[in-house]
C-alpha cells in the first residue's frame, strides 16, 4: 500500500511538472510566442476566442507571471482549457473527450496486446535457449523496431488497402455512417481499426520481445531456477512460475518507460490513417495553430501515460511481494 501511495505521489509531481512546462514553454521560448500570439490575434478574432487563448496561455494583462501561473493551475484543475478554434465554439474539454475513446480503444488495446504477446514470445524464445526462434529473434526484432511507425503505416495502407483492397485506408469509420451504439457501426469501426492496430502491434512488439528475452535469460541464471530443476518440477511450471513471474517484473518497469515511445508512434499512426483519435487531433491542432486545443491534448496524453505507468506499478505490487512490504 505504501508503495502504491508513493507512486501516486510521483504521479502528482510529474503531472505538476508537465502542467508547469505547458505554462512556461510558450512564454519562455525565444520571442515569447504566447505574447506574440496574443498580439497577433488581438482584434482579429472574437473576444470569446481571445479569452480561450488567455486561458490556454495563462496570459492576462497587468498580471505578474506568478499570479498568471496560479490562475492557470486553477483553470487546469477545473478542466478549463479554453475554447477550441478548430471546433469553435466547443470548449477544448468537449473535443478532447470525443477523441479519447478512439485512442483508448485503438492504442490501449494494441499496446497491452503487444506487451503481452511480446512478453510471451520473449519468454518462450529465451526458454528454448539456442533454438531456432531464440537465435533468429534478436536480429529480426532489432531491425523491425528500428522502422518508423509512420512508415510502416504508409506501406500497410499502400499494400493492403490500395493494392489489395482488403481494408479501408483511413478514418475511424465509413464517412456515410454516424457514430452510434449499433452492431453495424461497431463492425465498421473494427474493420477501420485493423490496419492501424496491426501497424502499432508490429512495430511495438519487437522491443517487448527483446527485453523479455534478455530478462528471462538473466533470470534463468538465478539459483532459484536451478533449485526448481533440482526439485524435479515440470518444465512448464518452472517456465511460468519461476522464470516468467520473475522476468516480467523488470519488464513492467520497462513498460512504463517505453510507453512514451509507443505513444509517439501511435500519434503518427493516427496521423497517417486519419484516425479520429487524440493523436490525430493533436497534430491537426498544431497545423491549425489551435493552441488551446493543443495544450489540452498534450496534458491529456501526459495523464494517459502516467495512468498507464501507475497501472504497471499496481501490477508490480501485485506480482512482487517484496514491493508490498512496508520498508
Amino acid at each position, binding site marked *: 500500500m505504501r508503495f502504491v501511495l508513493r507512486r501516486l505521489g510521483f504521479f502528482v509531481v510529474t503531472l505538476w511538472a508537465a502542467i508547469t512546462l505547458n505554462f512556461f514553454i510558450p512564454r519562455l521560448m525565444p520571442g515569447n510566442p504566447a505574447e506574440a500570439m496574443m498580439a497577433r490575434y488581438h482584434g482579429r478574432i472574437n473576444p470569446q476566442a481571445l479569452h480561450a487563448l488567455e486561458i490556454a496561455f495563462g496570459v492576462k494583462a497587468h498580471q505578474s507571471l506568478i499570479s498568471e501561473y496560479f490562475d492557470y493551475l486553477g483553470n487546469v484543475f477545473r478542466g478549463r482549457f479554453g475554447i477550441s478554434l478548430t471546433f469553435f465554439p466547443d470548449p477544448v474539454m468537449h473535443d478532447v473527450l470525443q477523441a479519447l475513446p478512439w485512442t483508448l480503444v485503438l492504442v490501449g488495446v494494441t499496446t497491452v496486446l503487444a506487451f503481452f504477446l511480446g512478453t510471451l514470445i520473449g519468454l518462450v524464445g529465451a526458454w528454448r535457449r539456442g533454438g531456432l526462434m531464440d537465435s533468429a529473434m*534478436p536480429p529480426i526484432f*532489432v531491425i523491425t523496431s528500428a522502422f*518508423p511507425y509512420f512508415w510502416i503505416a504508409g506501406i500497410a495502407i499502400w499494400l493492403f488497402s490500395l493494392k489489395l483492397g482488403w481494408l479501408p485506408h483511413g478514418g475511424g469509420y465509413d464517412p456515410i455512417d454516424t457514430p452510434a451504439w449499433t452492431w453495424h457501426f461497431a463492425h465498421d469501426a473494427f474493420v477501420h481499426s485493423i490496419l492501424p492496430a496491426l501497424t502499432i502491434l508490429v512495430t511495438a512488439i519487437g522491443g517487448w520481445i527483446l527485453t523479455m528475452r534478455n530478462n528471462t535469460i538473466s533470470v534463468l541464471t538465478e539459483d532459484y531456477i536451478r533449485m526448481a530443476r533440482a526439485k524435479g518440477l515440470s518444465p512448464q511450471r518452472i517456465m511460468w512460475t519461476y522464470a516468467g513471474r520473475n522476468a516480467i517484473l523488470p519488464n513492467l518497469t520497462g513498460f512504463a*518507460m517505453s510507453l512514451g515511445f509507443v505513444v509517439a508512434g501511435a500519434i503518427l499512426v493516427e496521423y497517417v490513417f486519419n484516425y479520429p483519435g487524440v493523436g490525430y487531433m493533436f497534430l491537426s491542432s498544431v497545423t491549425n495553430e489551435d493552441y488551446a486545443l493543443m495544450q489540452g491534448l498534450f496534458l491529456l496524453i501526459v495523464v494517459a501515460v502516467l495512468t498507464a505507468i501507475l497501472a504497471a506499478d499496481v501490477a508490480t505490487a501485485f506480482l512482487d511481494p517484496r514491493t508490498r512490504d512496508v520498508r
Partner: protein
Amino acid sequence: MSASSVGATDQLATPPAGPAPMVADARQGRGRDLWRAVSRSKKAAVGVLLLLFFGVLAVIPGQIAPYSPTAKIFPPGLPPSRQHWLGTTTLGQDIYSQLIWGTRLSLLIALAVGAVATILAVLVGVSAGYLGGATDGFLSLVTDVILVLPIFPLIIVIAAYEKNAGFLTVVVVLGVLGWSYGARQLRSQTLSLRRRDFLESARVRGERSSYVILHEILPTMTSLIMATFLGSAIYAVLTAAGLQFIGLGDPNSQSWGTMLYWAQSNDALLAGMPLWAIAPGVCVALLGAAFALLNYAFDEISSPALRVRKLDRARLPKAEPSPEPAKPAAEEHAPVLRVENLTVAYATDRAPVVAVDHVDLELARGEFLAIVGESGCGKSTLLYAIARLLGAPMAGEIVGGRVIFQGQDLVLLEEKRLRAVRWRNLSVVMQSAMNALNPVLTVAEQMRDACRAHSTWSKAEIDVRSREVLRLVSIDPVHLHSYPHQLSGGMRQRAMIAMALLFTPDLVIMDEPTSALDVVAQRSLMVQIKELQEQLGFAVIFVTHDMSLVRHFSDRLLVMYAGQVAELSKTSELFDRPLHPYSQGLLAAFPSLHGPKERLLGIPGSPPNLANPPGGCRFAPRCPHVEPRCTAAEVPLYSVNGSLVRCVLQEDAS
C-alpha cells in the same frame, strides 16, 4: 529444460564452434578488453559497417550522388531507370541523389543528440550515485520525472510555437530530455561501484573526487556509457524522422524525414513513385538498426549470459574412454552413490576448460562426506555435475564418466526419468537461500510445488507434511505463509533444508549451506543437520571451504585441488595426519578451536588457471616440498592406509 546437461554420449558429434566465437568476458568493462570483445562480434561488425557506409555518404555526398538534390531539371515522376535509379519526384528532382544528401542531417542529429544526452546522463547519473544523500534524492526524482514525460508530444508542442524544429531545436530538446534512462542506469552502477574495494582504497589514498570519477569510475562503465549513447542516437533518428515527416522539420532541408514528408504530401505511393516513399524509410530503419545492433552487441558483452557458448569437444585435452555399459542394479550393500571418472568441461571462447577431472568417489548409505578446497577448485562443479544441475550460470557439461545413483547412471538418464529421481531420492540445499528460494512465492507454495511434482497428496496432506518438516528444523509453521524476504537468513536456510526433507531422500547434496550465516548460527545449523541426518538416515555430500566447520560432523573428507582429488580419507585421519601438502596447508590456514594458538600459515599463491594447468602435480608451483619429479609426469592417486592421496611423496608408502 536440460539442453545444457545432456548426457555424455549423445553430443560427441558437436561440430566445432562457428568461425567467429564471440568475445571474452568483459564484465570489468575496462576499455581495451571491451574493444577487443566488440571487434569479435558479428552483430557489432554489421552495425559498424552500416555506420561507416552512411558516414561516407554523409561526408562526401557530392562525390557520390550523380545530381544535385534540389535541381528541378528532370521530367517529373520518372520511374526507376539507368539514369535515375529511384526515379524522380513530382518536381523533377533525382530521388537517389536526395537520398544520399539526406544522410548527412539524419546522421548528424543522431550523433549530436547521442553526445548531448550521454554527457548529461554521465554528469547527472554519476554525481547522483557518487554524492548520494539529498543530492541523489533530488537528481533521481528529476530523472524519473523526465523519464516518464512523453518527449515526442512535448517536442511537437515546442516545434508548434517555433513553427518548425530545425537542427538545433531537435538536438537541444532530444538531448536535454533523452538522458534520463542512461542516467538512471549509470547512477545505480556508480552506487554499486562505490562499495567496491578499489574505490575505497582510492579514497583512502586521498585522491580527489574528480580523479576517482575520471580514473576509477568512468573506465569501468564504458559499455553502459556506450549503451546510453547508442540508445539516444536510435531515439533521435526515429524522432527526427517523425518530426520531419509531419512537416515540423525544416521543409527545405535535405533529410530522409523531409523526403517522406514530400512523398506523403504528393501521394507518392499512389502516383506510381513508390520508391520515393519506401527508400527513405528503409534508410531510417537501417541507420536505426546499425545503432541498435551495436547496442545489442554491447549488451551481450556486458552480460555474458546472453551469449550461447557451445562446448567444443574436438578441442578437449584428450579423448575420453567411452563409458562402459552400466553394471547390473545394486546389490544389498551397494553404496548409495558411486561416481566414476567424472569429468566436466566448461565452454569458453578458446579451448574448453576441464573443471572436474576424472573424479571417483563412493558414498555409503547414511554417510557424511565433506568436500573442501579453495574457491575455483571444482567443488561446486562436481556437486552440481553429480546432481545433473549444470547449466546456466555454470555452463559446464559432463564430458565423461558416470554417476551411479540407486543403480542408475544419472549421466545417461533421460530428463523425464531424472525428474522422478529428483527430490524424492536426491535433494539439494544451496548456498544462499535468499537466491535459491523463489522470491515471488510463499514457502508453502514452494513446498507444494515439490509435493505436487512427486506425489498424489491432497492439499491437506501437503499442508500437514509441510508443517511437519518445518518443525523438524525448528521453524514455527506460521512462517509457511511468509515470502522468503520476510524471513531471517538463518530461517530461510532452515526452510530450504526443511524443503529438502519433504520426502526424506537417500541423499542430500549441500553446497556451503552455512556460509551466508554468522558463526553462531553456522554451528547451530550444523548440529541440526547432523541430528537430522542421524535421525532420518540420509547420506550427505557437503561442500565447504571451511575445514574446521565439518571436523566434528563429517565421516570422510575429500580435498579437491584444481579439479582433481588431492586427498580422500577419514575426517579424523586427515585432521590428525594430513598427507597431501595442500591438505596440510588448508589445515594450517584455520585455527583450531581448542588447540594452542598457532600462527595462521595459509598457502601462498592461488589455484592455477584451469584453462592451462601446470604439467605434473598441479599443486607443485605452491608446494613447499616440491621436487623435480613432481613436475615430470601426472601424479596418480596413491593408496596409503586406506586414504587416497595424489602426491609423489607418498609413492613409497603406498
